[in-house]
């Protein structure tokens, strides 16, 4: 179920404040954040965020297309390193 429109989009206040500050100073520097559930609002466009994925901070450069998505959508939390190929014997031989 989607969020009630009455409430408006959820924006992490602290992150938003930081963005505002940077906008006022007309500066662009990465903002470190854990607020993965924070919606991207138009003010964020052009800023770089370092979004925590549970282990490290991933670079997320916000473009216009991303407005309306959440920061966490761009910082993947899972890593997949392809399945091994061949049989056990082949793998042992190539080692």
């Amino acid at each position, binding site marked *: 179920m989607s969020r009630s429109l009455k409430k408006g989009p959820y924006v992490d206040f602290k992150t938003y404040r930081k963005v505002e500050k940077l906008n006022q100073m007309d500066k662009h520097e990465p903002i470190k954040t854990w607020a993965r559930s924070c919606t991207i609002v138009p003010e964020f466009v052009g800023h770089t965020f370092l979004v925590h994925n549970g282990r490290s901070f991933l670079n997320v450069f916000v*473009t216009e*297309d*991303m407005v309306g*998505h959440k920061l966490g*959508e*761009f910082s*993947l939390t899972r890593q997949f390193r392809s*399945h091994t190929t061949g049989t*056990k014997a082949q793998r042992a031989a190539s080692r």
Partner: protein
Amino acid sequence: MPRIAGSEIPDNKPTRIALTYLFGIGPKFSADICEELKLDPQARAKELNEDQLAAIAGLLESKYIIEGTLRRQIQQDIARLRDIRCYRGDRHRRGLPVRGQRTQTNARTRKGRKKTVAGKKSVKGMK
């Protein structure tokens, strides 16, 4: 056979059913169209006269997104998700379910036919 929106040819089914043969028109929109144009939803599609067909075509043109236009729009929406490299775009790219379904089993619609992996034992064997 009546022709609506290019080459779409619904047959001798009731109008409300025949219209759903168009991509982008389901039971709801079909009923809406019949309502708006005062068509008998139960009348067979072949009984529609020229004026009615023209009216349907005009309404589809102005109010609804159907067929190729709709298909293109869907593709564009997916392409957008891919381009901004978000999680959903990533799932589309990999051909896996997008809405958080399980993938250990099932998900065959997205993943396609089962690919048997040699040496992979029963579920118990995988830790």
